[in-house]
């Protein structure tokens, strides 16, 4: 028997790992990976709650998160490719001219 707490801990840790990747890495694709991990962490929590409470709403929400993640990844990759074509880099530290 695995308790809800254990699942939530995994979710929390995965979220932290994702956050670490986003903060540590400068490469835009790496950052995207970190964001995906964070979204997955949220999904684990949703599904764990769904399982614990006996409703399917959590799973439905998780499906929406997956949809959003897919959409986000598509746009992000398109932006990254465009960034590379215009600036010749995907290093977010170097692509500063949006800072003004």
């Amino acid at each position, binding site marked *: 028997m695995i*308790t809800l707490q254990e699942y939530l*801990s995994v979710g*929390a840790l995965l979220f932290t*790992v994702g956050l670490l*990747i986003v903060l*540590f890495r400068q490469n835009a694709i790496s950052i995207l*990976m970190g964001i995906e991990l964070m979204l997955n962490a949220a999904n684990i929590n949703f599904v764990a709650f769904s399982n614990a409470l006996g409703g399917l709403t959590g799973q439905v929400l998780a499906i929406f998160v997956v949809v959003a993640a897919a959409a986000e990844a598509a746009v992000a990759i*398109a932006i990254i490719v465009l960034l590379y074509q215009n600036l010749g880099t995907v*290093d977010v530290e170097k692509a500063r001219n949006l800072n003004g």
Partner: protein
Amino acid sequence: MSAEKVAFFILSGLTLGGGLAILFSVRLMRAVVYLLVSLFGVAGLYILLNAEFLAALQVLIYIGGITILMVFGLMLTGPGQFVNPAESRLKAVAAGVSSLTTAIVLLLIVKKTKWPAGTQALAGDTTAEIGRLLLTDHVFAFEIASVLLLVVLVGVALFVRLARDGGKP
């Protein structure tokens, strides 16, 4: 320890280990493979949580879609991008500290809150039930999601056009 528990530890190990491996890998392509491992672990956790449909969805969308998109992104952003540049020390420390704080806070919340114990069995065919829910209770969100996808489709098509014309609209 029951078989379920063993499976849980293996799968969470895969999930978190894959995530950490992304953090420490220097080659981006390998990072994508580690991401794959991590996402597989999550799919396994879904199965443990009796969410088979979501597990299959996870594999289909993440592995069949998002990781492949990332590989595409890697291929299209040139060979120079495979190795990450070195980070500044200050930034690393700041990132580490803030992440550690987040982790501690989150874990504390998980620990301190009184969660409902045990699980409630889900009745019948969850897949059919999810479908029903999507088109009844959550039909508004469903429509929003489809509009979102449409917007993404159009937006990405526009981006591709921009990319082909050399960034000029």
